[in-house]
């Protein structure tokens, strides 16, 4: 655990899937293990870091005066949160105007220009990225070579898996940058029934399910108290599972992770009709 290299982990997932909760808790987990952590929220909703900042939203990068000329000061951009986690929020555009993706690219450039991204500054950098519309902007952390390990949060719901498939396509696209898909983090809506759907889908696109997160009332309680579950109820099942996940992600050797083989839109449509029990005709690539 004493390596100098910074672990760069990107968590993608569709809005409302629980990825911000997972990210802030992973950040808390790493911090609890004595690591220096940077948590970057890349969701226009800008609530990734809120459980680490006493429920008070921090100023987003797009709101800073230095957004246009890249001259933002580090102390404006990076806010020290609970457990010593350093927090950044990219923020989003005024709805109906501007481009959310560009805000994310810009935020990363800003972080770079004030020295935050240098190796050795942090042990772990965690990016929490909205994965509903994987346009070029939201893929910025992959494109710009800032990511090593990528994980996708998904539920058994069709739209979540559709988004996951699109994200896998983006990962495949940028695989030459050295990024790898570590796997899917399953945050099921109904843990009793559909565990196998996600597992079958994962296998189909050449990846695995890293963790099944339990439904746990502690998650909601912690949210109401504006705290991470790791801090709020360290003994809760969700907290334990998150600690385990943080270890899995940390230890994974990126060189041993294979490039995903996402489905094409038409394949996805067909296979999803039978809950992914069918077979792929050609398991090559989902890219057109």
């Amino acid at each position, binding site marked *: 655990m004493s390596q100098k290299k910074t672990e760069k982990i990107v968590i993608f997932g569709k809005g409302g899937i629980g990825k911000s909760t997972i990210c802030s808790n992973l950040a808390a987990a790493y911090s609890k293990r004595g690591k220096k952590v940077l948590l970057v929220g890349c969701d226009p909703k800008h609530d990734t870091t809120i459980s680490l900042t006493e429920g008070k*939203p921090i100023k987003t990068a797009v709101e800073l005066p230095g957004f246009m000329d890249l001259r933002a000061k580090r102390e404006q951009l990076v806010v020290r949160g609970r457990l010593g986690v350093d927090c950044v929020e990219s923020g989003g555009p005024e*709805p*109906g105007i501007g481009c959310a993706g560009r805000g994310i690219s810009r935020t990363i450039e800003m972080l770079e220009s004030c020295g935050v991204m240098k190796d050795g500054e942090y042990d772990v950098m965690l990016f929490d990225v909205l994965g509903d519309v994987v*346009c*070029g902007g939201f*893929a910025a952390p*992959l494109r710009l070579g800032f990511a090593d390990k990528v994980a996708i949060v998904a539920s058994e719901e069709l739209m979540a898996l559709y*988004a996951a498939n699109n994200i896998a*396509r983006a990962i495949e696209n940028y695989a030459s940058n050295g990024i790898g898909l570590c796997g899917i983090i399953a945050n099921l809506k109904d843990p009793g029934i559909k565990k196998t759907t996600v597992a079958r889908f994962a296998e189909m696109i050449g990846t695995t399910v890293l963790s099944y997160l339990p439904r746990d009332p502690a998650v909601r309680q912690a949210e109401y108290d504006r705290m991470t579950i790791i801090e709020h109820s360290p003994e809760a099942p969700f907290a334990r599972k998150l600690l385990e996940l943080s270890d899995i992600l940390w230890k994974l050797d990126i060189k041993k992770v294979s490039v995903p083989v996402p489905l094409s839109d038409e394949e996805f449509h067909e296979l999803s009709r039978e809950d992914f029990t069918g077979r792929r005709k050609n398991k090559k690539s989902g890219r057109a």
Partner: protein
Amino acid sequence: MESLVFFGKGGIGKSTICANLSALYGIGGKRVLHVGCDPKHDSTMAIAPEGYVRTFMEKFAANEIDTPGGLTLKGRFGIDLVEAGGPEPGVGCAGRGISLMLETFKEHELIAKGGYDVALYDILGDVVCGGFATPLRAGFGKKVFIVVSEELMSLYAANNIAKAVLHYSPNGVVLGGLVANLRDSSVDRAPLERFAKLINTRILTYIPRDPAIREAEYKRKTVVEHAPKAPATKALAKLSALAYKLKAGKLPLPTPLDDRDFYELSFDQFKKVKVKETTP
């Protein structure tokens, strides 16, 4: 011509609702243009002829668009169909594709010369960046409807869409109201009603959970033709009449919440009144 725009978060049921409304208008003898603006390009599935519907993006890339006939595909019930399509994930910009498509509409005078009674736009509303709001910006869409469920994220998206509507209101864009497509019909509707009131709009229709919707989907049909007597069909028929008849001039401007208000007020299910008037 009535220009109706349906926004909603992915997976909320907006394509199902839109396809059914177009079908109802088509069956009722109206000339309909149905434009799908979701990168998932499945808006027209239930009203398209057999086979794959090539998207605008695909046709454009292949240089197949030189006549108005190249732009639209004749669907069932005489509906003219267009699917915008989307970019390769991780590359390009979905919003720009929509802008390009609308520019091409203008170039070919599709709206001006098409003789349509209704133009219906089905638009993804998760990320309301400038691109997805183009149908409001370019003066294509007029009456905006937002499909929501009881889930908080759908209301967050709805609030953002209301902001975009407010911003483009000088173009004559108005918020027609919300369409509730609940996941769980038994859920308490009061928070949803309170949210609608907070942003100065109303819920036009509750679409009931109805197994006929799923049955129709598997058959790639609209529910209105598959099960004309089903509760969902009745609700959709009511909505189609309302959406068509609403007078744009009589609708109030929405008063969306700012992000921080939304966050605060959502914690107690919108029971408190707004902290302050928003400044868009």
